[in-house]
C-alpha cells in the first residue's frame, strides 16, 4: 500500500466549494478516477482520505494537502496525478503527488497573500503600518468555550506589504495546524477596528503550508 500526499490547487469558482462539500466532491472525484484507493475495513467501509487543513469558503489556494492510500504498489505517482486530474472539477487540479514524509502534526504555519482594495490606498497603508507597529494586536476569537481575547501579534509574521494603484497587497505567515489556527480574517477585523478607511479583502490565497522551521510541509 502506498501512502500518498497530493498537493492541489483550489482556484477560481472552486473557491465557493465549502470544506464540507469538498469532502463529498473529492469522494466522487476518486470514484470517477477509478484509482485503487484504500477503503477502511470497518462495519461501513468507506474510502480513506483526509485534508490536512480546512480552507475558508471564498479563499483560493495553490497548496492544499490531501492524504490517501493506494492499494496498488506498482502505480506511479505520475499515473495517480494524471488519473485524478482527468476528472477533477474546474478550478481544482493536482500539482504534485508524492509519498507522505512528515506527520500532519508537523504543520506549524501557512502563508497567505491578499489584496486590501481601497479608494484611499495611502490612508490604508498608513493604518496597516500603524497596526503592525503596535506592541499587541488583540482580537476576539470564537472558540468552543466562548469568545476569548488573543494577541495575534507574536505569531504573525508579515513578509511583504506593498501599495498598488488601488490596494495594499500583503503576504504573511499565520499559525496553522493542529495547535493554533489563525485565519487572515482575524487580521482584517483588527485592521477595520483601528481605521476608518474602508477596504475590501480580495484575492485571498493560501500559498504555502510550512513546518516550524519554515520548510515546506511534505
Amino acid at each position, binding site marked *: 500500500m502506498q501512502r500518498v500526499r497530493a498537493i492541489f490547487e483550489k482556484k477560481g469558482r472552486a473557491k465557493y466549494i465549502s470544506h464540507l462539500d469538498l469532502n*463529498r466532491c473529492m469522494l466522487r472525484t476518486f470514484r470517477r478516477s477509478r484509482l485503487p484507493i484504500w477503503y477502511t475495513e470497518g462495519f461501513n467501509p468507506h474510502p480513506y482520505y483526509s485534508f490536512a487543513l480546512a480552507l475558508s469558503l471564498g479563499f483560493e489556494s495553490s497548496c492544499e494537502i490531501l492524504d490517501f492510500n493506494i492499494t496498488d504498489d506498482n502505480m506511479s505517482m505520475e499515473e495517480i496525478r494524471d488519473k485524478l486530474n482527468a*476528472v477533477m472539477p474546474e478550478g481544482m487540479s493536482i500539482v504534485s503527488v508524492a509519498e507522505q514524509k512528515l506527520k500532519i502534526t508537523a504543520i506549524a504555519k501557512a502563508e497567505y497573500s491578499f489584496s486590501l482594495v481601497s479608494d484611499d490606498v495611502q490612508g490604508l497603508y498608513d493604518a496597516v503600518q500603524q497596526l503592525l507597529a503596535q506592541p499587541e494586536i488583540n482580537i476576539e476569537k470564537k472558540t468552543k468555550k466562548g469568545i476569548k481575547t488573543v494577541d495575534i501579534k507574536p505569531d504573525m509574521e508579515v513578509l511583504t506589504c506593498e501599495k498598488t494603484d488601488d490596494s495594499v497587497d500583503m503576504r504573511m505567515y499565520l499559525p496553522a495546524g493542529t495547535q493554533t489556527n489563525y485565519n487572515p480574517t482575524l487580521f482584517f477585523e483588527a485592521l477595520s477596528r483601528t481605521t476608518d478607511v474602508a477596504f475590501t479583502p480580495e484575492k485571498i490565497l493560501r500559498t504555502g503550508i510550512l513546518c516550524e522551521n519554515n520548510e515546506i510541509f511534505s
Partner: protein
Amino acid sequence: MLKDKIEKHLLEVQKPSRYIGGEVGSIIKDKSKVDVRFAFCFPDTYDIGMSHLGMKILYSLTNERENYWCERCFAPGLDFEEIMRANDIPLYALESLDPIKDFDFIGFTMQYELSYTNVLNMLDLAGIPIFAKDRTEELTQIVVAGGPCVCNPEPLADFFDLFILGEGEEVNLELMDLYHEMKQQGAKRIDFLRRAAQIQGIYVPQFYHFSYNEDGTISGVTTTDGAPQTVKKRIIKDMDSVYYPDNFVVPFTEIVHDRVSVEVLRGCIRGCRFCQAGFIYRPFREKSTDTICKETKALCENTGYDEVSLASLSTSDHSDIDPMLTRLIDYTVGERVNLSLPSLRVDNFSEALLNKIKKVRKSGLTFAAEGGTQRLRDVINKNVSEEEIMNTCRIAFEGGYSTVKLYFMMGLPTETDEDIVGIADLAQRIVDLFYSIEDRPKGRGVQVSVSCATFVPKPFTPFQFEPQDTREMIEHKQKLLLDSVKTKKVKVSYHDPNVSMLEVILAKGDRRLCQSIYTAWKKGCKFDSWEEHYKFDKWLEAFAECGIDPSFYANRRFEYDEILPWDHLDYYVTKEFLIRENKTARMSVTTPHCRLKCSACGVSKEIGGPCFAKSKSDI
C-alpha cells in the same frame, strides 16, 4: 461582466456554489457556434431543482445537438434575490452566466401548483415581461412550460407563450427545429406560434377563447389562428430506444436527491383514483433489464456518485423485477454503491432476493395506505389490504425494524368519521402486532408515524369532479383523529389545510385565475410551498380583489356534463372513462390493474393496440 458582479456579492449568501456553475458534468459551448439557446428553469431553489430527473434528461438531450445549448436556471434564495435586485443582476443561466432574457427559449417545468408565483418572480428577476401579451413581436424570448401541472395550464395561460403537453424528448427538439428554421427566415413571434400550434403536443393558449355561463361555469371554447380544437399530449413509444443521459451535472452542495437516478418505467398500471400521475403518464412502458443496468453503470462511472435509486411510480410492477434487482444488486455491491429502492412492494419476491434487498435497504418502512378502512381503500382503488400491511410489518419487525411510517389522505370522497377512526385503529393494530411478536427488536418500543395529507382532487383523475373538504370539515377530522389515538407509540402529523386549498384552486382553476396569481405575487407571495413563506391571507386578499370566489374551484362539485377548463386537452384517458371510474368509486367497487384486465381508459386506442400483450393479461 455579469460574473464579476455576481462574485462581488457571492460570499454574502448561503451556499454560494449554487449560483456560480462550474459543476462537473455541466455543459459549456461556444455561443458563437450556437443557433438556439434554451434556459431550462426550475421554479424553486437549486437544491430542489437539481434533483429533478426530467431536467437532467432534457438538458443532456438538447445539448447532444451541437448547435443548441440548454442551460440551467433556478429560483434564487431570498438572500440572493435581494442582492440581485439591489445590484441590477438579472436572472442568469448557470453555464454561460448570461442573462436568460437574451435566450431564445425560457422553459419552465411545472411540478407543483405552489411554484406558480415563483415563475412570475423569476420572469420579473430576468427582466422578461410577465404577461405573454407584453412581450416583443420579434422571434426571441419564447416562454414555455411543461411538466405534470400543464395538464391544466389555464391558471398560467396569460404568462406563457406555449405549453408542451406530455413527454418532451421528441417534441422539444421539433419545437426548437421549427424555431431555428423560422428565425433564419426572419419570422415574427406570432408566425412561429401559429406554426408551433400545429405540432402535436403544443398548446398555444392565446389561440383559445373561453366563454362562460352565468353561474360561472364554462360555456364553450373556440379557437383562432388555425389552432386545433383539442391538443393531444406526446409520448415516447419505446423506452429502450429513448434517449437517456449517461452523465449528470454533479452539484457541489448537497441537494435533495443527491444520487444517480435511473428511470425504470413510465406510467402505472394501478389506477389509484386520486393519483394524477397514475393517469396522465399512461401508457405503462418499461425499460428492459439490460438498458437499466447499462444506464446505471454509465451514470455511476461518469458522475462518481456512490448511490443509485430507481425512479418510477411503482418499481415492483416491472415485469422483470426479480432478475433486474438481482443484477443491479450484484453490480452495486461489487462497486460499493448503495442502491435505494423507493416505491417498492416487497410482497411478491423470492426468499433469496428478499435477503439481498434486506442487505441494501437501510431506510425505514413506509406504507401509503391512504385510507383508514377497507371500504375507503376500495373507493379510491388503492389495492392494499390490511392483511398485506400486517404481513409486511410482521416480516419487518422480525427482521429488526421498529419504526413504520403510514401515509393517509383526509377528505377523500365518501369519507366518514368511521374512516378517520379507522386510521387510528390501523395504527393501533400495528402497535399490538409488534408486541405480539416473540423475536421483536428488544430494548426499544415501536414507533408508528401517521402522516395525513389533505386530499386534493386533480384534473385527469376520476376524482377531478370532486369537491375538496372545507377547512372546517378537515379541522373536525384532524381533531377526531388526534382524539382517537390512545397511545404515544402512534405519532400523528398532518398538513396545513390552507395549503391544500390553494393547491386545489390552482390545480382545477381556469384562466380567470391568472390575475389572482399575479396579484398574489405582487403582494409578496413566492415560495408558497415553503411553510415559512406561505402567506394564505395575501392569497385570500388577491382572490377578493380579483372577484374570485375560491370555493367555486375548491369546494364545488364539477358536474359530469360541465365543460372543464382542461377538457380541450387530450391526455389519452377519456372523460367517459373518468366518469365511469367516478361512478364505480361511489359504489366502493375496485377496478383491476391494467395487467389483469384492460379497463378501456382510452389509451390503447391512441397507441394503436393493447398496452399489454395477451399472454401477460393472464397473469
